[in-house]
């Protein structure tokens, strides 16, 4: 049946059709929907793991047990999962094992723009790169065969435009291969030095065999056209190149990007007058071609950073592009903002009022860095807030302890904040940590996590008690506060900053977008009392503006949280 499917949904369909039995992932844009969609098939066991390393090890365990398994993550997640990845390359698999890694060129929702193909090359794991939804489905199915044929995990690299574009997919029935029995095999599965030493040459041999396979595999293809120009490309860049050149160029489309073929590329290059490599991010295909001795263009024309598009490729290659008209004036920007009623807002307001240095983390609350709150000083990677505050406080010998805090979300805390807290408790810095517990993984679109009490299907599950966990790790001062209560937030923050031992403040209120959170009636402005002082505007709530020197509440956005009314000295903002 032909259906319009998101790339990630098509990927999940491929997993289903290929008989995948176990999925374990950590959410991360743009990879999240592969796992969410897989979870809609009752035949597949699916879960959200606490982080990508755990997820990949779960999927590895399922492979060890002889079942086809899957693990999905965004590009930076593969850094977290790199440890099991590099050695799973040595052990190989029993049941097929696919890892989805989704890159984010253009950084729509990411903290860096790293190119996952480097991990593929370094870990010596074969890697496929679909260019649309149909290929996402097809490659997922074929990747299992490849994984089992070559005894290796297989990476399927997605990117934002493939993951989050819908295109037509022809679906098929699910076929589950017979499970492979688990057999004890220490030489294959115990990667102690004596065994690993013997494994490494086998991995090198596998790469040689995979390179031969790449010369004539179903993932790579040549589309002949005008031989004046030859283009080697992959992923969404293939679509842009076809859009610009159609059959006015020859195209070598690479669906397998690690290892790269040699003879296929040399034969293709020999047929064309001029060779151009079109790839987003790093010059990996380009460097490979240069090593083969080819003369070509690539990053001399096209940038290393950002997303490509059809017009950009056309312009760089000297093809005329359509032009549009823009207005003469600059339009005001519309950056993303914390939602009206967001529980994080009250805590960030408190931190700003207390002039705190705030070491931040990854999640919706990164938006606390935006004006007018500008309440965050640093964001690095998952969990870094807790580890960094310890280093910051140690380095400044107590001078900064009284005004520095770390903020981290509930899901991020479990992902990789716990180890940072263990370090604070063990090596004893007088650090103040605030867990912004909104009872969900917010930014990626509401995934459950180990602190919410529900699993990926929304059924009741185990629930980590954050207070008990933090105490058990050796933190004696643990406070819980409602971020809608500004006076309580201010008091707790002041007290914990003044304390002479490590402390954890749990700022707890569920995300306002959760279905079970019922909005209160929108607030009303008493225009007699409003003097237009704009105190309420300091919160940066998108539901409040000031028109004609009076506060105005957007009733379609306001959820009646009442935080703004606590700032109004004149009682002008009233419960609706």
């Amino acid at each position, binding site marked *: 049946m*032909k*259906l*319009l499917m*998101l790339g990630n949904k098509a990927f999940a369909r491929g997993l289903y059709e290929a008989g995948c039995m176990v999925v374990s992932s950590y959410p991360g*844009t*743009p990879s*999240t*929907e592969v796992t969410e969609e897989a979870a809609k098939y009752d035949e597949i066991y699916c879960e959200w793991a606490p982080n990508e390393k755990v997820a990949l090890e779960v999927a590895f365990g399922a492979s060890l047990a002889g079942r086809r398994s899957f693990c999905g993550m965004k590009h930076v997640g593969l850094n977290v999962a790199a440890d099991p990845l590099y050695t799973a390359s040595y052990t190989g698999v029993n049941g097929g094992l696919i890892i989805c890694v989704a890159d984010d060129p253009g950084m*729509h*929702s990411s903290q860096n723009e790293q190119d996952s193909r480097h991990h593929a090359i370094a870990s010596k794991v074969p890697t496929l790169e679909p260019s*649309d939804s149909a290929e996402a489905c097809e490659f997922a199915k074929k990747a299992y065969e490849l994984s089992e044929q070559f005894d290796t995990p297989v990476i399927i690299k997605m990117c934002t*435009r493939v993951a*989050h*574009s*819908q*295109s*037509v997919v022809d679906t098929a029935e699910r076929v589950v291969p017979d499970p492979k029995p688990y057999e004890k095999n220490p030489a294959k599965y115990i990667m102690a030095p004596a065994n690993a030493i013997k494994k490494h040459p086998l991995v090198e041999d596998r790469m040689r065999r995979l390179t031969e396979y790449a010369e004539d595999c179903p993932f790579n293809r040549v589309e002949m056209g005008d031989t004046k120009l030859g283009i080697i490309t992959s992923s*969404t860049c293939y*679509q*842009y190149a*076809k*859009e610009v050149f159609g059959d006015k160029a020859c195209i070598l489309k690479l669906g397998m990007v690690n290892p790269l073929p040699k003879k296929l590329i040399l034969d293709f290059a020999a047929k064309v007058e001029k060779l151009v490599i079109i790839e987003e991010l790093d010059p990996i295909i380009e460097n490979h071609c240069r090593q083969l001795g080819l003369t070509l263009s690539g990053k001399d024309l096209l940038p290393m950073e950002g997303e490509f*598009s*059809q*017009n*950009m490729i056309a312009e760089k290659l000297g093809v005329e*592009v*359509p*032009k*549009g*008209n*823009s*207005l*003469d*004036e600059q*339009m*005001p*920007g*519309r*950056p*993303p*903002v*914390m*939602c009206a009623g967001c529980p994080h807002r009250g805590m960030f307001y408190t931190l700003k009022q207390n002039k705190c240095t705030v070491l931040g983390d990854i999640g*919706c609350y990164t*938006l606390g860095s*935006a*004006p*007018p709150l500008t309440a965050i000083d640093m964001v690095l990677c998952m969990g870094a807030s807790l580890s960094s505050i310890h280093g910051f406080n140690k380095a400044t010998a107590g001078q900064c302890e009284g005004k520095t805090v770390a903020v981290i979300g509930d899901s991020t805390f479990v992902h990789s904040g716990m180890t940072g807290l263990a370090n604070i408790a063990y090596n004893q810095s007088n650090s103040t940590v605030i867990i912004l517990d909104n009872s969900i993984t917010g*930014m*990626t*679109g509401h995934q459950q996590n180990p602190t919410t009490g529900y699993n990926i299907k929304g059924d009741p599950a185990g629930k980590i008690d954050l207070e008990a966990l933090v105490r058990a790790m050796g933190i004696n001062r643990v406070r819980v506060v409602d971020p809608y209560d500004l006076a309580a937030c201010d008091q707790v923050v002041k007290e914990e900053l003044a304390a002479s031992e490590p402390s954890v403040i749990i700022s707890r209120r569920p995300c306002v977008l959760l279905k079970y959170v019922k909005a209160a009636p929108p607030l009303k402005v008493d225009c007699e009392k409003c003097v237009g002082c*704009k105190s309420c*505007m300091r919160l*940066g709530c*998108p539901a*409040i*503006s*000031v028109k004609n020197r009076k506060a105005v509440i957007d009733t*379609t956005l306001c959820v009646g949280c009442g935080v703004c009314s606590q700032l109004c000295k004149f009682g002008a903002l009233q419960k609706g």
Partner: protein
Amino acid sequence: MTKNIMIVGVGGQGSLLASKLLGHLLLKEGYDVKVSEVHGMSQRGGSVVTYVRFGDKVYSPIIDKGQADFIVSFEKLEAARYLEYLKPDGRIVVNTQEIDPMPVITGAVSYPENLIEKMEEKGAAVDAMDCLALAEEAGSSKAVNIVLMGRLSKYFDNISLEKWQKAIEECVPPKFLELNQKAFLLGRG
């Protein structure tokens, strides 16, 4: 010949339902279709763009500057922001609602005035209407997306009203169907 529809607005306004409806309808009409969406960070009240492309064979999932046959905008400022993507003979269908972005709320800049006129001065064909009022008339302020789809449908001579209505039936939960059908007809005018 590939046709390009760009849907622009503010995160949370419901553009995903609009693109779902278009994708569903156009696929049933026998076209190759690609729809490109925005997920994640930008959805939190930021400027969002969805691309819908259809034709015999569609390659790129995105629409570039000077290529859009239609820009369907949920908000006035967003229409102006993406004007450069419109083809010289393209058309803008715009909800005249104004939603202040944070730099306007904080007072750093002001909301630009006379945007419809300014877009027309640049040669754009602009079909502007108060979709929020029509959505509320239909029963919910959230139906702005379907009001806009109703307006857009007027410009598709080859797709009958019945086909649009059938597509809505197939894309919208039953309990909201009547409201959405009403919103669609109000938009279509």
